[in-house]
């Protein structure tokens, strides 16, 4: 196997649902909106200069956050290979985890209230090592269930002791 293969240039990477990006944008815009309201209140109270500064700040922050969020979203990816699961993530600190199916201890599927309202779920694969980091957020609920069942199945077939 070549280095390209493990880095996944030749892998078929799957991505989280685009709704995750919508959710993240929503979270960011809620914050920006709060800043905007603060700016409006300040402007209404007569501190026009301060209000305008806040407005500008909110816009810049919002745009910056939007860029950050979308880059982060596009960095997420996972690939199911024959013997292991690849998970990549992160923009500033880019990480690529290789987790063999046989090392899996258990799988966790969680969905917070916001994620649930978007029909999303987070799948997490745990190994005996605390440092292992195989989390895939924002999966479509059906895809999360499929992944969970597939991982459980392959994990059982390849299980290795400690």
């Amino acid at each position, binding site marked *: *196997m*070549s*280095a*390209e*293969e*493990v*880095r996944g240039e030749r892998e078929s990477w799957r991505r989280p649902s685009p709704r995750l990006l919508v959710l993240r944008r929503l979270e960011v815009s809620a914050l920006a909106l709060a800043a905007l309201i603060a700016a409006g209140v300040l402007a209404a109270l007569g501190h026009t200069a301060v209000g305008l500064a806040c407005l500008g700040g909110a816009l810049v922050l919002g745009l910056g956050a939007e860029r950050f969020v979308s880059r982060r979203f596009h960095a997420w990816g996972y690939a199911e290979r024959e*013997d*292991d699961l690849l998970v990549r993530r992160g923009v*500033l*600190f*880019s*990480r*690529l*985890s*290789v*987790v*063999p199916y*046989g*090392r899996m201890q258990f799988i966790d599927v969680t969905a917070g209230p916001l994620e649930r309202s978007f029909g999303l779920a987070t799948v997490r694969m745990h*190994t*005996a*090592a*605390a*440092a*292992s*980091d*195989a989390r895939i957020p924002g999966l479509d609920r059906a895809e999360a269930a499929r992944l969970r069942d597939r991982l459980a199945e392959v994990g059982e077939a390849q299980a*290795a*002791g*400690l």
Partner: protein
Amino acid sequence: MTEWRRLHPLSPIVRGGRATIALGTVLLVSLLAGGRGSKDSTPELVIVGSIVALGFVSWLVTRWRIDGDDLRIESGVLRRQSLRFPLSQVQAIDIVRPGLARIFGLAELRLRTGGSSGDTARLAYLAAHEAEPLRDRLLTLATGARAHEGTAAPEPAALEHVLTTVPTGRLVASVLISDVGILAEAVLVALIVTALLSPRAAAGVIGAGAVWIFAVLTPVWRRFNQEYRLSLAEAPDGLRLRSGLIALSAETIRPGRVQAVRMVEPLLWRALGWCRLEVDLAGKQRSKGEGQAERRPLRTVLPVGSRALAEELLERIVPDRPPVQSPPPRRALWKSPLRYRMLAWGRTGTCVATTSGRIRRVTVWAPLEKVQSLRRVQGPLQRRLRLATVHVDTAGRSVHAAIRDRDTAEADRALAELSDLARTARRKKGR
């Protein structure tokens, strides 16, 4: 299968530990006072009596037995607890004898399992002469030799082959120039100097700083107490570590349960060519009901020894170690100026070795069949320098193998190779 058995009747007293001593003192004082008729000692007697009664009840309801391949322990009155430990999952079995337990001739048996939550199986306390045969029996069951059940086990002590024992003089010297030792010495020297300069000030300092003096001396004492005459032996049922001055302990690490080994060489030790070997096991560092002193993040196999001795022991724990370790590219100096001199890594078909550390040098060997997952991480500075780090995760909690600051291409190659080799090693072991 055996019938239900109870712990030793004296165990509540020893479990109470220091509280028992305090209780005894209170009782003695109140009796003396009562004898003189100066004070009514009934309240004290009632309190002491009820504590003794509670201890007795807790002893009465705690029982254990070996049930097939499991060890079962039941305890509690209001909150009844029934624990079942599958022996095949046991990582290590320890026999611990604190000072008080030795006075009463008792010993505690402790089973380490791999889980990150849940209780440790503790049998506290058994009669000392029972503990060793029980441990050998449990270990035999753990290896799945059920056919031998009932037949007398061979005398395991006779089969033990002692590999090394630490000389006390060398242990003292090594503790004195270790980090905790130097801190304690600095504090003591400061006190003595103060005392010489102005005796009155020294008295005040000692009075106020007693807690601090105690705090710096405790780790020194703990290390000395724990590692006093530590001997490593090879027994058929695993590696056996015996050590202790006041509190004795005998630990047995089952074969193939070592997740990683690390060798630590502090700055001052390097000048003397000394090093320290520690092995990491699966499971958490500290369990419920264990004090700070009992915490065992790592098992020290060799508290202090020469490189040659360490190599000899390593050969038995991780055979087939990578000989040559390659340094990282020069530009890694920008990212890790202090670490740069230490950084290196190497691998063979079955084992990966990494070296790191800023002041002390830490070398880690991880058997590839124990690798849980691999991670390639690249931070912003590393990206600019075209470097990347590959982490090798094992089930141990304390030893961390990381191939730091390698050229990106090399890191990718390492990631691919190691994941292939780990798979092969895993398969070979599974068969």
